[in-house]
């Protein structure tokens, strides 16, 4: 009872703080929307550069099916690539941690891969897999996988050796040390990469669609460009922004939940 009483007071301000934060976000969003509409009318900006927000929203509402289908398709590609890439990246980092020789032989190649335009390999992936959903998921996969491996390994290696020695002295198995100590310690660093990968995997999916496909946000962008339809481009951009922000926010939310002890920013 006393524990429940002690727990309830901080919960209320936290909920209030959350409501306030959400309120501020919504207010900022409305302000941007109003500024968009207002500036276009005020300065008489030609629709070729920036159509009014209401016109863009009307374009989305005119064919909501196409935008919803594109949204779902790109989201699926991004999610499959992101989840498998993240899981595989952590697994490879653990393998590197366990096998020092492997790490020293392969890890430098991973670091170098961070400095080359890996997205250019997307062209090859599309050639290998054809214009399938898989091809885009694979592009999103490797764009996620490289940074996650690098950061997860840095996190795994930053564990204090004395803590490992302590757990070992209490008879912990290597598996227990990994799941109870090393993986949780590596979480903050891993999430830094995951947040980066959230944007990268979406970029991978969109660029992958440019090589030719029939549905997806990238396809909508490309079709609008060929038709020189600026309103449709802005509509696709708006839906991409929704997807990108939503996905990033979901990853950041997961981070706050899992790394409750405070992540390094």
């Amino acid at each position, binding site marked *: 009872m006393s524990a429940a009483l002690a727990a309830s007071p901080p919960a209320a301000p936290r909920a209030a703080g959350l409501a306030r934060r959400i309120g501020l976000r919504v207010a900022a969003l409305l302000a941007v929307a109003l500024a968009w509409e207002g500036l276009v009318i005020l300065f008489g900006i030609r629709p070729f550069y920036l159509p009014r927000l209401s016109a863009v929203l009307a374009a989305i509402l005119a064919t909501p099916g196409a935008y919803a289908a594109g949204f779902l398709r790109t989201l699926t590609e991004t999610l499959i690539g992101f989840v498998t890439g993240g899981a595989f990246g952590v697994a490879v980092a653990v393998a590197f941690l366990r096998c020092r020789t492997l790490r*020293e*032989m392969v890890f430098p190649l991973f670091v170098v891969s961070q*400095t080359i335009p890996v997205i250019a390999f997307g062209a090859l992936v599309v050639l290998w897999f054809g214009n399938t959903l898989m091809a885009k998921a694979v592009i999103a996969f490797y764009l996620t996988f490289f940074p996650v491996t690098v950061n997860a390994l840095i996190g795994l290696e930053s564990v204090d050796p004395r803590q490992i020695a302590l757990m070992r002295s209490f008879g912990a198995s290597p598996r227990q040390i990994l799941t109870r100590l090393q993986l949780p310690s590596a979480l903050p660093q891993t999430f830094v990469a995951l947040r980066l990968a959230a944007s990268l995997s979406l*970029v991978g999916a969109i660029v992958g669609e*440019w090589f030719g496909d029939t549905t997806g946000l990238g396809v909508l962008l490309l079709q609008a*460009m060929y038709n020189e339809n600026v309103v449709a481009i802005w509509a696709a951009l708006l839906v991409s*922004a929704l997807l*990108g922000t939503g996905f990033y926010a979901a990853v950041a939310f997961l981070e706050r939940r899992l790394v409750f002890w405070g992540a390094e920013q």
Partner: protein
Amino acid sequence: MTAHKSLAVQRGILGALLLIGLWEGVARGFALPAYVLPAMSDVLLGVWSKRAMLAEAAAYTLTEALLGYGLGALVGIGLAVALTLVPRARGVVVTAVTAVNSVPVVAYSPLILLWCGIGLASKVVMVALAVSFTLFLSTLAGLDRVDRRSIDLMRSFGAGRLALLWRLRLPTALPLILAGLRVSTVRSIIVAIVTEMLGAYGGLGWVIYQAVLQIDFVQVWSAIVVASAASLLFFGLVGLAERRLLFWKAS
């Protein structure tokens, strides 16, 4: 320690050689067709035989990337510095930048291509857009890192806003600004290539896209190898400059 370090370097080189060997061996040994995996030697031969065309394309892409990089860095850093001098504008500017930045940068390519045509200008604008976001955010984070007490101390000695900025804020922000500059090198080349794929008169992205359409795998690989080399060179040069400028930060 150094003995182990040199061993690690040796193993790293060994790893790279093994990868090349494995690639060559698998492609040759299984006689894989070029559409699965061309042999490394064929790719390098492809680079050599098309060296004039690839060098021209690389020069074109690097010009776009460098122009956009310089422009984007100026705009990004300049905007962040201006905000510390005019703190009142901060809320508005940060909201606007966040709104524009919520779209994945490459998604702006079709729009910019319509606005600026498929020549050099559209790629420079795209690269500048991507680079300025990165540098605006990292510069702002760096400028905010200043210790409140250091500001109070300098102010108590009569330092004005500009002196605070020049002698305290910018040196404190320098590590983050330089890290942003380093990350942006790769990003600028990626954005230039991706934008070229949508429409261009030349450049590595255009070469890659044409090769995909003609299903010429060796050419795709050759262009990727050249793009990677260019990116590594750019990254290395900026990394070197960073170490020179941050002389007080050991390793």
